[in-house]
């Protein structure tokens, strides 16, 4: 299944007005049936990248091939075979949900029946409501519906769940999974690591216009050196060098932030007793101890020293 290349993009670069380098040499390969995530903080160049792939922006240099075609020579065929949801589109408020889908479906030579799409996206009940009256989650489902009504093989979603409540986010994830299970290929951007982790088969972490790491979520996380994090704080924080903790068994990395020390470990059952023994031996006192699974956030912090969402 994962053998047919759907999107191939090489050494993509985009420079705005000769100054701002939004994308600086980016490579992507998407296989049929994949859900591919571009994960990165705001301003990393995700939207620029996806809009170049959607044929809405022109790359400064580099090549893009989708379904074996490129935008210069086959724009009409490509438009027919992809579905797009932009980061922020405010659809006409005075049209009903059904009218909006009929309008978008009308642009495609092969379109899906509006009723089918309405049902699939749980919008049948709202079919005759004006777009202006919809909730945020319903609007977002409609935005994705306008992408699906053209019966695409490839779906591009730019930040599909930004600003949505948890339930609406899960609904969107369901829609993406169903499209994928029907044989569709998806490229989405997100700055939510949980979304990338749960939804995507393959992730490229993008920062400053470049892919800084790529792989399946599991690969990326094991790349940190361990699947677990042991985080602790000491009551009267003594100054201890990183090497001190690195000497503990099974520790792959040490980070210190706001008085909390985080150890990346492969086997917590080996590390924790040793850690406790060491603390006791020194007469220190623990004020906090937690363990959790490593996440993509840890991957990102490890790679860049920054958090994904610096609010």
């Amino acid at each position, binding site marked *: 299944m994962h053998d047919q290349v759907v999107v191939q993009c090489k050494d993509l670069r985009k420079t705005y007005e000769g100054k701002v380098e939004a994308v600086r040499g980016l490579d992507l390969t998407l296989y049929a049936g994949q859900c591919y995530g571009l994960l990165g903080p705001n301003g990393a160049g995700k939207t620029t990248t996806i809009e170049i792939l959607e044929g809405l922006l022109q790359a400064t240099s580099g090549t893009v091939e989708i379904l074996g075609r490129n935008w210069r020579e086959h724009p009409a065929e490509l*438009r027919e075979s992809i579905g*797009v949801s*932009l980061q922020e589109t*405010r659809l*006409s408020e*005075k049209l009903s949900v059904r009218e909006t889908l009929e309008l978008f479906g009308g*642009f*495609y030579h092969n379109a*899906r029946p509006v009723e089918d799409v309405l049902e699939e996206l749980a919008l049948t009940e709202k079919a005759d409501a004006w777009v202006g009256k919809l909730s945020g989650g319903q609007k977002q489902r409609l935005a994705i519906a306008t992408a699906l009504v053209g019966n695409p093989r490839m779906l591009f979603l730019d930040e599909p769940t930004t600003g949505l409540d948890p339930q609406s986010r899960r609904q969107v994830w369901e829609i993406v999974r169903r499209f994928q299970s029907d044989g569709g290929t998806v490229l989405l951007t997100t700055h939510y690591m949980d979304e990338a982790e749960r939804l995507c088969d393959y992730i490229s972490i993008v920062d400053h216009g470049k892919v800084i790491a790529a792989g399946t979520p599991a690969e990326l996380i094991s790349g940190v050196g361990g699947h677990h994090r042991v985080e602790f704080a000491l009551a009267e924080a003594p100054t201890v060098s990183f090497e001190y903790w690195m000497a503990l068994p099974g520790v792959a990395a040490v980070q210190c932030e706001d008085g909390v020390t985080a150890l990346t470990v492969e086997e917590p059952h080996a590390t924790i007793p040793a850690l406790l023994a060491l603390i006791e031996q020194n007469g220190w006192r623990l004020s906090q101890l937690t363990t959790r699974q490593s996440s993509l956030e840890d991957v990102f912090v490890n790679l860049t020293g920054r958090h994904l969402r610096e609010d």
Partner: protein
Amino acid sequence: MTGPSNEAKTEQRVRNVIIHGRWTGYRMILMARLKELFREPEVIFWIFMFPILLALGLGIAFRNKPPDAVRAVIAQQPGAERIAELLRHATGVQSLKIEVQPSAQAALNFRLGKFDVELVPHASTIEYVYDPARPESVLARSLADDALQAAAGSKPAVPTTSRVNSEPGSRYIDFLIPGLLGMNLMSSGMWGIGFALVEMRQRKLLKRYVATPMRRGDFLLALASSRLILMISELLLMLGFGVVAFHMKVVGSWPAIFLVSCLGALTFAALGLLTASRAQKIETASGIMNVVMMPMWIFSGIFFSYERFPAAVIPFIKLLPLTALNDALRAIILEGSSLSSQAAPIAVMCFWGAISFFFAVRFFRWT
């Protein structure tokens, strides 16, 4: 429900598909545009109600009244009552309202415009105080003078007769209705196209549309079509209103009126397209549109004839698209002129329309 079997999965993949024809997209955009327009109460008001209310208001304010009263005041001096008596009983000056007031008050009220002429009786003569810049003042002076001379027995040197003619066609409302129609075609074309486009751009809707296989030409064509459909209703409403409410006579041929209106609607749609071709914000676009329309509101003879402007600028005024539209509409509606006699204004409109469309398409920003 049981989990999806392999069969169900393959079945799912074969989705129902409808095949759309070449013009489905165009039809859908056109229908969506019209629905949106008619669901916007403001649009209905500005396009349909506002011009009617304007015509009604101006038509009533400037209606052909029974010879409108001009008002004369006589300063309270010896002989004032006798003059007032003469004027009140003179024939043919029912339209002259006379009052006698103390000198100071009479002078003040004349200055404030409450009277059109002031008569000051002197020992051997009557002095008229009037303002040559005010037509009604000149008229009042001459009416009062004629009446006094006639009452005193003077005979006209040249025998003359008069005939009254206030047939529909020569009245202010007849002049006004085609002008309002032209103005309406201009503002609804500029706003209807320009505003809608900038709003769509601001909402990123234009960008969303170009991410579909929508043909860009079809999109512009659908916008133009929606203007033409609206134009027909504006035309029928405006002229129908003139005919029904003011007994206006449409002298020219309807096909000619229709063609000129189409051309006008398209010209201003193109101008609206041009003003909206790059603007990212509604505020910018409405600023530009007002700058473009303002000179035409003033110079193009909507409410009064542009012949009142100095002769030197009239050739330039005639080059404005709204002047051309108003001239052609008036000539055809009021005088029954043929289309071919209106070649010059038609050429002016075609020129503006073509130039605007050319540059609009060239500079148009979809994203």
